[in-house]
């Protein structure tokens, strides 16, 4: 009879296999943001439409979304109608845009064609503010509470599913 501890390496292998199996289901392209729970990073950028400066101070006083978008971004088109509808359905929620590495004229034309859900868009011409926000792809959307703290980040196009399951519960929770 072999002693019981001969089985230990096999058990260790099975445990490792289970762990790696679980890992296959994870998506490594979704990088966790270290900014969640932190105040929105400071910035000061020209607005796309108005003659003014947009800064992180604009987020205070109510719930906001900061949506990173660009006219050259194909996936942004997919989420745009969701944002436009959301801006109408949830007037309390201010949707800000971060126009990332884009041309002003292209950006303005794009919004004219597809609709403008944004209270205002900040023009991040060289992407420096994007780096401060840990942006690595477009589109990305940050959920910011009334105190100016980032509470969530969504990488990729915003979907109705995300709105239903992640965004609205937060807004409802805050309102109660």
């Amino acid at each position, binding site marked *: *009879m*072999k*002693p019981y*501890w*001969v089985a*230990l*390496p096999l058990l*260790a*292998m099975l445990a*490792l296999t289970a762990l790696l199996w679980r890992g296959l289901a994870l998506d*490594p*392209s979704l*990088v*966790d*943001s*270290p*900014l969640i729970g932190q105040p929105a990073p400071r910035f000061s950028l020209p607005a796309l439409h108005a003659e003014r400066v947009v800064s992180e101070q604009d987020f205070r006083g109510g719930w906001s979304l900061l949506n990173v978008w660009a006219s050259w971004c194909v996936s942004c088109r997919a989420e745009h109608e969701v944002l436009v509808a959301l801006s109408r359905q949830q007037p309390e929620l201010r949707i800000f845009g971060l126009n990332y*590495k884009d041309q002003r004229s292209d950006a303005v034309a794009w919004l004219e064609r597809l609709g403008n859900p944004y209270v205002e868009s900040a023009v991040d011409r*060289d*992407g*420096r503010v994007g*780096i*401060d*926000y*840990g942006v*690595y*792809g477009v589109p990305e959307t940050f959920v910011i509470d009334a105190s100016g703290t980032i509470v969530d980040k969504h990488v990729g196009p915003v979907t109705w599913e995300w709105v239903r399951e992640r965004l609205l519960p937060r807004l409802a929770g805050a309102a109660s």
Partner: protein
Amino acid sequence: MIRLLILCGLLAPGLALAWSDADEARYRAMLEELRCLVCQNQSLADSSAELAGDLRDQVRDQIEAGRSDAEIRSYMTARYGDFVLYRPPLKRSTWALWLGPFALLLLGLVVLLRLRRAPSATPRPAPDAPDADALRRILAAEERDGTNS
């Protein structure tokens, strides 16, 4: 005089940047240590993604501004998390990652060594020595009875 001025003009860009060989070496080393978040299997040194270019510029600017390697690393991880470091840091949450393979190897070796020294836990009992008298009596009885079992 004119030639002197022209010479100074040509040399000026090299002097103004004040980018030493040491800076270049640090820059190159840093680029190998940081991951491109877009092409996630490549470092900033290898990736041709636009974000990689932006981040390379960031690293260059920071070195020029006199920041240390540790400061540049923490700048990146503050924005992108630990994943931006190509080599995972050794923290409590990554002990299993770093030490796991060695632990498994050690476990395997220990089991192997112990198996060689103690091949069996319960040895089989030695058979009794045959009882010669009893054997003779049995054989004699079988001969008389004419049985052959």
